């Protein structure tokens, strides 16, 4: 049941995506009307072309409904399997977690915590190895910060 739901999601995600683009283009066209000529000419041309293309794409999808869609081979994406969505979303969650840590506790502590927890709990790497990698990465980051005069976020929590 779960895998059938995932397959349906993969097959049908493109239609809402293009429909979403169509809506965004229409909103852009509508909002552009209020601008001065210099500011509205280009967005209106782009939004008009975008609406036309989105409608053509929706028509193409409607005409080829039921057929399996190829993925973009220039992306080397390969075919998704049943685990692509949950695994991808899980890793997006890890990214989101790191971004929040980055803001909450600062760049260097967040890096250490993220690397250790990601390698240890997600990939079962030994404590020694993940601590070593985390320490090395923090050191490199600290040195890069000095050399390139990078700016770090002021931690929200302290």
């Amino acid at each position, binding site marked *: 049941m779960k895998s059938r739901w995932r397959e349906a999601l993969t097959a049908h*995600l*493109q239609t809402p*995506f*293009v429909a979403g683009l169509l809506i*965004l*283009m229409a909103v852009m066209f509508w*909002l*552009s009307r209020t*601008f*001065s000529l210099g*500011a509205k*000419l*280009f*967005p209106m041309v*782009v*939004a008009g*072309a*975008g609406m036309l*293309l*989105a409608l*053509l*794409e929706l028509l*193409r999808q409607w005409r080829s409904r039921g057929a399996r*869609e*190829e*993925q*973009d*081979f*220039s*992306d*080397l*994406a*390969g075919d*998704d399997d049943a*685990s*692509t969505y949950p*695994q*991808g979303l*899980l*890793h997006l969650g890890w*990214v*989101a977690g*790191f*971004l929040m840590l*980055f*803001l909450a506790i600062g*760049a260097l502590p967040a890096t250490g915590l993220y*690397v250790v927890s990601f*390698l240890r709990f997600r*990939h079962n*790497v030994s404590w020694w190895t993940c601590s070593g*990698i985390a320490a090395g*990465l923090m050191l490199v*980051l600290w040195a*890069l910060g000095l050399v*390139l005069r*990078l*700016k*770090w*976020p002021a931690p929200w929590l302290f």
Partner: protein
Amino acid sequence: MAESFINAFWILLDPYRMGMLFAGVAIGIAVGILPGLGGLMGMALVLPFLFGMDPYAGIAMLIGISAAVPSADTFPSVLMGIPGSSGSQATVMDGYPLARRGEAARALGAAFASSLIGGLIGAVALTALVPFARPLILAFGSPELFMLTVLGLSLIGVLSGNRPIKGMLAATAGLALGTIGGAPVAAEYRFAGDFVYLYDGLSLVIVALGLFALPEIIDLLAKGGAIAEKPKKLGPGLLQGMRDTWRHKWLVLRHSLIGVGVGAIPGLGSSIIDWINYGIVARFAKDRDQFGRGDIRGVIAPESANNAKEGGVLMPTLLFGVPGSSAMALLLAALMIFGIEPGPQLLTSQLDMVFVIIWSLALANVGGALICLLLTKPIAKLTYVPFHYLAPAIMVVVVVGAWQETHLWPDLLCLFGFGLLGWIMKRVGMPRPPLLIGFILCPMAERYLWMSYNLYDWEWLYRPGVLVIAGLTIALVAGGARLKRSSGAAAGPLQPAREQAP
């Protein structure tokens, strides 16, 4: 012009700039050996750190990355049968069977030697074109330049993915995103609401990192990062491979020239250049029975073309300001970061920069291929490092790079948003390069359109130059799409041969 050519060489010879060029080559090799990453991601990773850098050094670094990737991506293609990037898919056809019968070093030797020669031919072809193209480009007005931008975007949109309408839609979405913020020709803010962060528009670095870096990392991790497998022995034969290249020197020359020609068509080069060349060499060779089973010519032809195309993709990029590939779009972006306007102005006021780019391309090709040749064994070992060890480091660089934009939390929100968008675009088969290129070309396209309209009203549409470029757009889009379909069809039947290889 000759003076600029020589002057550029001395500019690049500065130790700091040479250091940056070879740092770029090292990064290019690192991302090239990791399947799924590639030059675009390598360039996106360094883009945030270019601010404040010497322009020549920064550009040399980016060229170093883009020139080294087509050489380094041969490692995974030959050793593991996984293309290192989209440009080395056809190398797998004969490179992997050679590796399976213990001749990996021979395949790599031939690939690097042909890459080196191909890359140099690409640089020479680009140099030869500059004096001829300059007067033509300087004769163009705003309407013709706008149409050239439309031509480039249409080609990239149509040829980047499998569905032309989706590609065009992605390019239009990129243009739409580029309109957020201050209008370039009127004192108005558009689509920014009360969100001050958007008044300057979306950050190119964040859009590039989000669209290309995050989805690749997530996909490689989600699919288990199939990089780790039992290392294959390289075997002897590195010199034999180089001798093979010399034995097939006319093949190298022919496919390098094809590589330059195909690379010069925006959007066409990167994804199919190897298949076109593999198709040609397999179709016109007298003895064809070994293709797909380990014929060295099946490695030499795509690899020489793959490196030569870098000279080709730079042609529309430098001469017209229309990126020949998505990686070249980032080069244009870098030029903008340094305050250099891409397009015809580059050929008038920044000729030194044009030749620095060409010299960088030549030196990076030589350097990249020589490093790969001399350090084949240690680099080959790096190919087998499991991706989950590298992913956190790349992720940290991406986030730190994004943070350097404005040092505000919306930087990270945008990074995540574009990462999610890029990941979804991969799922729905919507090509991402046209979106990025549309976003980069937006300010230029808007300025050209406004100037054309201001000067000629809608009469500019009937100018002879505009009509010629419009006709060229239709012909190139139709011809390119057909060429792409036929190269895809050629690739299809050849695929099983690899599976049957010993």
